[in-house]
């Protein structure tokens, strides 16, 4: 599904990702954990196509295509989705309008007919129930005046509607209470399927109690320092990131 090979990324001439490689197969859920400043969010933004980041080396294949060669909207149309760490407020644009435009834009890309208004409303209502959202959230301007939890839930709601092949969740759990976390996790788990992959970026192990990953990777200083199964997350929770950072440094010195 997604193949990242030796990715180097810089922002303002400062290298953030320093040779990151990662392969995510169809149906797999991977989690990337790591301390602040290790490059987690940079990875998410680069994959989504933010142009403030400069890829200096390496390549990313998405379903065999050169992802880095595609515009952000083309990536979305190919089936990539990013749940933003900080969802953007867009005054004056209704949530449901954005979603219908997005969905129909993706459908058009795939050569499908646009969804009729009534069909869309039906779909939106169905998905909203899963996320326990009031339908006033649909009519309100995108993320404007939303609470932190509402914003994150809205990201998952968008994911539910757009049904991507590969979803990247960038610290979707940050700042959520347990109830909200459960709802978000349920929104993700209900989409898990053998055809869909997830990359869950998080700072805390807690989320992984609810979204159980197949693989856990630790990102340290722009590289994956350690990979393992879901137990690795528990170990990190227990011991912190220090020992992985130490191991990584030793590996460099040797």
């Amino acid at each position, binding site marked *: 599904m997604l193949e990242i090979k030796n990715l180097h990324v810089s922002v303002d001439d400062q290298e953030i990702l320093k040779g990151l490689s990662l392969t995510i197969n169809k149906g797999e859920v991977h989690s990337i954990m790591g301390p602040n400043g290790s490059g987690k969010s940079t990875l998410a933004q680069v994959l*989504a*196509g933010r142009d403030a980041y400069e890829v200096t080396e390496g390549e990313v294949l998405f379903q065999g295509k050169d992802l880095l060669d595609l515009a952000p*909207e083309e990536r979305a149309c190919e089936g990539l989705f990013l749940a933003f760490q900080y969802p953007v407020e867009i*005054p004056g*644009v209704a949530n449901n309008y954005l979603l219908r435009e*997005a969905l129909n834009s993706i459908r058009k890309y795939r050569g499908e007919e646009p969804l009729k208004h009534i069909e869309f409303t039906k779909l939106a209502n169905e998905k909203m129930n899963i996320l326990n959202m009031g339908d006033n959230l649909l009519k309100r301007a995108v993320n404007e005046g939303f609470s932190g939890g509402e914003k994150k839930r809205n990201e998952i709601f968008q994911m539910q509607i757009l049904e991507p092949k590969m979803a990247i969740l960038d610290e979707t759990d940050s700042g959520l209470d347990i109830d909200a976390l459960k709802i978000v996790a349920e929104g993700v788990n209900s989409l898990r399927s053998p055809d869909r992959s997830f990359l869950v970026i998080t700072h805390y192990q807690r989320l992984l109690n609810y979204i159980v990953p197949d693989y856990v990777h630790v990102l340290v200083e722009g590289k994956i320092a350690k990979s393992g199964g879901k137990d690795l997350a528990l170990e990190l929770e227990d011991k912190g990131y220090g020992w992985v950072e130490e191991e990584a440094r030793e590996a460099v010195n040797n």
Partner: protein
Amino acid sequence: MPITLSTKDNGYLQGYGKFKDSDGFGKSAWLTSLRDKGLERFAELGFPTQQNEDWRFTNITPIARTDFTLAEKSNGTVDSGTVQNYSIPGLDCTRLVFINGIYSQELSSFTTHPENVKVLSLSEAIGNNEEIIEEHLGRYAGIENEAFTALNTAFMTDGGVIVIPGNTALDTPVHLLYISTGSDSPTLTNPRNLIIAGDNCQGAVIEHYISAGDSVHLSNAVTELVVGENSTISHYMIENEGRKSFNISTLRVQQSRHSNIRSHSVLLGGALVRNNVHPVLAGEGCDSLINGLFMSTARQHMDNFMRVEHASPHCDSTQFYNGVLDGRSRGVFHGRIIVHKDAQKTDAKQTNRNLLLSDTAQIDTKPQLEIYADDVKCTHGATIGQMDENAVFYLRSRGIGAEAARDIILNAFTNETLQSMTIEPVREYCHALVTDWFLKRKEALSQG
């Protein structure tokens, strides 16, 4: 014989002398006295300069140094087809058409209004010696510090008069369509509208200024809107004159107890535009919405001068103006809120948001609060910014193309003001004008 007005050699005074002998002047003594006062004051004030704080950001030298001819009916031809082009699709209304500021009965059209409602031209109303005109005309729009209002008062020739007696709902709006045809030399019109609503009334008026030609022209319009107790009146100003035109307009609203006004302005045309909106919330419990959108490009200059006067307790006012500025254009938003001593429990809000689409566009935004009461709530906020590229990226990351994403954000910005226009055909019409503006911008960009 055309009457020329010039700031050189006492030209305005001499022109006034000639105007006195013309048919448009009118014979009533009260009107002559009103005009004389207007001219006298104008002669004292002269055109404002930028030393005047109220005109700090707007240089009207291009107006002051132009020799204008008082526009006449005869110059230019406009047929019903032209009028049709500027009608508002789907709007059932009475339309008074003014060509170069002078009423044209042939081109106007009427719907049936409730009994006793009067919709006629100012020239007709003066000709008929309508007493209500004498009672109200010039009573509200001050000339003391307002040179353009003084000038209008001296030279006003025609305009729309709408009188809604108490307990009456004007079910279809009145569309006042001002078409300037221009001529070889610069022309001046002084439209003067008077709208008087009794108690418990409802109604809507649309002032609409357009140019059929592309010549230099000054529309110096004054509208007095008197709103009786418990009445709701909507006023729309659509300014879409030619790129060489000057448009100075003043809306002066006098509100009685529990009255409600909705003022909407959409400014798109003109080289130099000044939009004065001045409601006085004179009775208790009034509500005013002062809503507007201005869009400028090239070297256009658009100045919005708001003066919201709270004179009684428990009144609410909301100013909401959005500006879109492109090219080397310049915008001004000057929002003054005056809360008089007795106007306790005032709730006055002011918001001005500006979107700059080019590096060379400029906006000056200036809130000004004068508060003489001690139990009031006044809030103001202004923003100036470029297109939010984070928002563009967010939309693109959802599958929406870059151009469509930008369109969505621009439309959202303009819709913030358009959405509070309650008459759907007018809102749709304004929306179409805005869409057209964006389309022309795109064409210009694609041609480099």
